[in-house]
């Protein structure tokens, strides 16, 4: 993998290129200065996370919720909903019954 090679070279948990890639996934943009600061801070944090590799978790079922509930069903009864006007009331831009956004394709 591209990133693994880079990491062996630098000895870092996360490289600046990888920060770039993750930022794109998260739909965030950073300046060069921010990127350098983040790369170093994220490295410190990820180094700390390394602790977990000490724990033997063989056969342990991952836990996603503290209280196990089965499906939360309710009767299928139609109730009042927010409606169009209220749903659009906080929109930065709306036209008619729609949210308005910048162009998606040419």
């Amino acid at each position, binding site marked *: 993998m591209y990133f693994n090679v880079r990491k062996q070279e630098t000895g870092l948990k996360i490289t600046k290129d990888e920060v770039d890639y993750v930022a794109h996934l998260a739909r965030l943009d950073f300046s060069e200065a921010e990127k350098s600061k983040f790369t170093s801070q994220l490295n410190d944090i990820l180094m700390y996370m390394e602790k977990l590799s000490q724990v033997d978790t063989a056969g342990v079922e991952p*836990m996603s919720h503290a*209280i196990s509930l089965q499906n939360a069903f309710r009767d299928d009864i139609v109730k009042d909903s927010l409606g169009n006007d209220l749903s659009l009331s906080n929109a930065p831009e709306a036209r008619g019954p729609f949210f308005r956004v910048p162009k998606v394709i040419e």
Partner: protein
Amino acid sequence: MILSRLTIHELQSLIRTGGATSSDIVQSVFARIEEVEGRVHAYITLMKDYAFAEAARADQDIKAGKIQPLTGIPIALKDIVCTKGFLTTCGSHILYNYVPPYDATVVQKLREAGAIFTGKTNMDEFAMGSSTETSYFGITRNPWDLDRIPGGSSGGSAAAVAADECIASIGSDTGGSIRQPAALCGVVGMKPTYGRVSRFGLIAYASSLDQIGPFTKDVEDCAIMMNAIAGYDSQEATSVPMNVPDYTEFISRGIDGWKVGIPKEYFIEGIDPEVNEAMQRAITTIEGLGATCVEISLPHTEYCLAVYYIIAPAEASSNLARYDGVKYGFRSQDSIDLLDMYKKTRSAGFGAEVKRRIMIGTYALSSGYYDAYYKKASQVRALIKRDFTEAFTLCNAILTPISPTPAFKIGERMDNPLQMYLSDIFTVSTNLAGIPGISVPCGFTKGGLPIGAQFLAGHFEEGTLIQIAAAFEKYANIEKRRPNL
């Protein structure tokens, strides 16, 4: 008599005997806000006109003999719970103008119990922080020392109660965000069991950990607030359909014959010596109440922070994907296309700590790293929960410190995120296991800063916590002091 200084139960008896009206109480609280808010900055938004109008209405109800448990009582809400028609910012630029079209269930329940809202309190942006320094709307100061932080993320709610800028308040706790500021501000704070209080209308940070709870001036008030907000809500899929006891019944039961666990992993090097002394005095107090303190072990304690700072950011990265500049809140202008608009909006709308956690979470969930981080953390989480289950076969409740140090100085930890995360070392395990916890004042440092003790109990054992905390509060007889504001 200054009404803003009193507790819910004291004000309730005054209301019932005609000693004070709701309007008197609201007047007193807003006079106090006028006096100290410029220095404390506990609130983002004040609801003064609304509060006075509601007080007049409450006084009509009182005259008509319709008195609910919170009738006429001024209560502040953390700016993370949605209030219909009132600005709800979550401490963020990205929601700087958001006016929810609906109320959170907890808001509705408090309204039904007669509460009057004073305003929306300051908080770390999206509840991510331990000091209330990351709010877009400025910092909150600790009423006991204005050069220090009030704790976080619910720092505004804690400071408002400590400074008598409300009678009680609502906060949220994902990794200690109620208990830690309660301890640092010298008030009572409870994080209920996951599923006990509805999260409907709570702006999500980490959905498997978030829980709403009260800040109060004493344990009896905590019981009264829990009575009002606990219970099943069909609008919230993780809300648990279980009966809620009357928590005030646990107040004077005592803890004679109880076993209280002292986990050895929580009494480590690095705890401030004055915090440690206060904890030793707390142990003596508990034994003086006829309980036995027993040493227990929670072997996975040292991994709690690492697990928390993977799981919480992972859930946050997913929850905060909704802030895209389309449906509500801030939108960056001058974008060339949709993707550019998303990136510009999110980069300008979120603060540094929120972006840091979104990055950690996105990384931990990304292809190739999921097993090493998120899956591993979820497995260790199961072991942490098992530690508690085993511990509660040996004791009724557990006693630990809340924060390794008293309130630290403003700015002290802002440049070192990892050091800031270490502030949560004694609180995150509770959220990972889903159990309830309460923070109770247990003394002061020589410099006059409050110290808190934490009690923990098994799932849905909030009554147990009220019982031990009330007994402790009564018997420890912590000196009654007020912040010198």
